[in-house]
C-alpha cells in the first residue's frame, strides 16, 4: 500500500467523498513522509478494503476532518499533543494525551445553577486501571463526563520506532494483556503486507485459534465484571472461575495464561498435538456448559436484569457517528464484525451475531457478549479438530512502504498501521477497539445517574492500557 501526499483541500475532499461512498473512518495519525511532516487517515469499506488518505503538514497544520467524521476527535487531539500538528477548524482542540496543561483546558466548562463536579481517579477503589474521570452533575444526574486517560502512557509506539520489523511485535503487543493476540496479529498482518508475505491456511488457522482463545476469556471476564458492577457476588465469582479455567487452558496450550509470545511475524510457532487439541476441546466444552448454566441463572434473576435495561444508551446513529466498534456497536444494531471480512484468518462462513433487541443499552451490550460466546466456542471446536503444526508464510509478493492490519478484538476493530524504513519500523500506530469506544462511554453516561456509571462503564469494559500505550 502506498499513500501519496495530498494538499489540504483535496485531502478533505477525498475523505468526504469516501465517507459519502459508505467508507468509514478507522484511524488517523501524524507521521513523516521523507522529511515532510504528514497526517494519514485510515478509511475502511464495508467489504473490508482499506485506504490511506495522506496530507502534508509542511507548515505544521492540516485541515480537520472532525466535522466529517466525529470519530476522528481523539485521534486529532492525540496527533496535536504528541506530534505538534494543528488541525484547522477543530475548535476547541482540547488536550488529550498532554497532562502538563491545567485541567480547565482539558475539561469542558459547565456553568449554571446547581451544577457541580465530581472528580474520580486516577486511582480507583477496586483493582482497576488508572484514569481520571470528571463528572459534571446536577444532583445525581450526569450532564457530561470528561475522561482524562493516558495516565498509563508509556510511549510504546515511540519505543517501537527503529526496531527491526520482526522484533516490534514483542514491544507493541505488550501494550495490553487483554488484547495481546489481537494487537500482535494486527501488527503481524501489517508487517507481512510490507514484506510481501501471505499467511498460509495453517498460519491463519493457528492465529485464529489464538484470537478466539483470547475472546473466550475476555468475554467470560466481561460478563463477570457486569455482575461485579451491581454487586452480584455469586455471578461475579462463577464467571471469575470460568475465566480462570480459560486462562489455564491458554497456559496449557501456549505456556502463557495471556498467550504472550504466541504470535510472530512471518509464520506461526504454535504446535499442538492431538492430545493437546483433544484436552482443549474437552475444557472448552466444560466452559460452554458452565457458562450457559450460569448465564441462564443471570437471565432469570430479576433483581440483576432489572438494573440493566434502558441505561447507558448509545443508539445506532450515535454509534455510527462516534465510530463505535465491537459488541457495543452490534448491540446498537450496527452489525459489523471484522471477522466477516478477514481473508487472512480462518473465519470461513462467519456471520455476525445479531440480537433481537438491538437498543444499545447496558442490557443489550451484556446480552451481545453472551450471544457471541457460543459461536466463538464453535469456531474453536472446529479449528481444534486436528493437530496444529508450526508453519511459515508464503513469500514473494510485492513489497510496500506502508502496511495495515485490521483484526476484531474482544472490544471491536483494532487497526495497526506500520510504516517502514528498510527492514525497521519508521512509524507505527495502534488504534484499538477500546480507543474507538471511549468517547461512546462518555456519551452513554450523559443524562444517567452517577451511581449507574460504574455499570455503564463495565458494559463497555474497555482497556486503558492499549488506549494509553
Amino acid at each position, binding site marked *: 500500500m502506498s499513500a501519496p501526499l495530498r494538499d489540504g483541500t483535496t485531502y478533505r475532499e477525498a475523505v468526504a467523498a469516501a465517507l459519502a461512498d459508505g467508507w468509514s473512518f478507522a484511524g488517523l495519525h501524524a507521521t513523516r513522509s521523507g522529511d515532510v511532516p504528514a497526517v494519514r487517515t485510515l478509511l475502511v469499506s464495508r467489504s473490508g478494503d482499506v485506504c490511506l488518505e495522506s496530507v502534508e503538514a509542511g507548515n505544521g497544520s492540516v485541515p480537520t476532518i472532525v466535522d466529517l467524521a466525529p470519530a476522528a476527535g481523539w485521534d486529532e487531539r492525540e496527533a496535536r499533543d504528541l506530534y505538534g500538528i494543528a488541525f484547522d477548524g477543530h475548535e476547541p482542540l482540547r488536550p488529550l494525551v498532554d497532562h502538563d496543561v491545567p485541567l480547565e483546558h482539558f475539561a469542558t466548562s459547565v456553568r449554571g445553577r446547581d451544577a457541580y463536579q465530581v472528580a474520580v481517579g486516577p486511582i480507583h477503589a477496586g483493582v482497576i486501571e488508572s484514569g481520571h474521570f470528571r463528572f459534571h452533575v446536577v444532583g445525581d444526574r450526569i450532564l457530561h463526563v470528561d475522561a482524562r486517560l493516558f495516565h498509563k502512557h508509556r510511549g510504546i509506539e515511540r519505543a517501537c520506532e527503529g526496531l527491526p520489523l520482526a522484533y516490534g511485535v514483542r514491544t507493541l503487543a505488550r501494550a495490553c494483556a487483554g488484547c*495481546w493476540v489481537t494487537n500482535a496479529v494486527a501488527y503481524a498482518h501489517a508487517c507481512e503486507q510490507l514484506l510481501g508475505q501471505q499467511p498460509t491456511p495453517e498460519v491463519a488457522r493457528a492465529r485464529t485459534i489464538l484470537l478466539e482463545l483470547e475472546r473466550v476469556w475476555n468475554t467470560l471476564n466481561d460478563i463477570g465484571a457486569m455482575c461485579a458492577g451491581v454487586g452480584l457476588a455469586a455471578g461475579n465469582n462463577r464467571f471469575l472461575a470460568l475465566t480462570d479455567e480459560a486462562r489455564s487452558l491458554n497456559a496449557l496450550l501456549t505456556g502463557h495464561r495471556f498467550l504472550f509470545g504466541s504470535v510472530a511475524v512471518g509464520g506461526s510457532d504454535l504446535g499442538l498435538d492431538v492430545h493437546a487439541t483433544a484436552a482443549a476441546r474437552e475444557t472448552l466444552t466444560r466452559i460452554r456448559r458452565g457458562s450457559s448454566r450460569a448465564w441462564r*441463572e443471570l437471565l432469570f434473576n430479576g433483581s440483576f436484569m432489572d438494573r440493566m435495561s434502558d441505561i447507558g444508551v448509545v443508539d445506532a446513529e450515535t454509534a455510527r457517528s462516534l465510530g463505535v466498534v465491537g459488541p457495543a456497536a452490534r448491540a446498537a444494531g450496527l452489525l459489523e464484525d471484522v471477522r466477516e471480512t478477514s481473508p487472512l484468518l480462518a473465519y470461513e462462513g462467519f456471520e455476525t451475531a445479531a440480537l433481537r433487541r438491538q437498543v444499545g443499552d447496558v442490557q443489550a451490550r451484556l446480552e451481545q457478549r453472551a450471544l457471541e460466546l457460543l459461536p466463538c466456542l464453535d469456531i474453536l471446536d472446529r479449528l481444534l479438530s486436528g493437530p496444529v503444526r508450526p508453519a511459515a508464510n508464503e513469500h514473494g509478493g510485492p513489497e510496500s512502504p506502508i502496511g495495515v492490519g485490521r483484526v476484531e478484538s474482544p472490544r471491536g476493530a483494532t487497526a495497526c498501521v506500520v510504516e517502514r524504513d528498510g527492514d525497521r519500523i519508521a512509524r507505527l500506530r495502534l488504534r484499538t477497539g477500546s480507543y474507538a469506544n471511549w468517547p461512546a462511554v462518555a456519551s452513554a453516561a450523559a443524562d444517567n445517574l452517577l451511581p449507574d456509571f460504574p455499570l455503564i462503564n463495565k458494559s463497555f469494559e474497555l482497556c486503558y*492500557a492499549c488506549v494509553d500505550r
Partner: protein
Amino acid sequence: MLTLLRDLRKLRGATALSAPDRGRSLALRHVDCGSCNGCEHELTLASGPTVDMARFGLGIVASPRHADVLLVTGPVTTRMREALLIAYAAMPEPRRVAALGDCALGVDVLGSDDQIVGPVESVLPVDLRIPGCPPTPDAIAAALLALVDATTTARR
C-alpha cells in the same frame, strides 16, 4: 441463584480451600502505575473463588487510609508518580510496599525512557517483590502470605 451458589460450593470442594488455623490479616490497596492490565487481571483472580486469598485474611480495601500494603503494578509512568506518592502518604504506619510484576521491578520494561520514571523502588521503599509477567494468582497470594508470616515472626 441457587444453581450459582451450588456450582461455587462444588468448585470450592474440588479446589480444597480451607481457612488457616490462626487469625491474621493484611489490608491491600492496589495502585496501577502503567501496567498492561495483566497483573490486575491476575490480582482479581487471586481474590476469586479458586485462590480466594480472603480466607487467609488478605483483602483489597478501597482506600490507602485503610491499607497495610500498597500493591504497585507497572513501570511507574511519569504521569502516575505523583498519584502514587499521594496514596503512599495517605497510608497509616506501619506500612509496606509490594512491587507486583516484572514491570514494577524494572525488569524487561517496554516503553520510552522519557515516559517512565523507573521501578517502584526508585520512588518508594519496596518491602516485597513479586516477579512474573504477570505473576499467577497463586504466586501473588503465596508472596503476600510470606509477607504476613515474616511480619508475624518479626513481632514475636
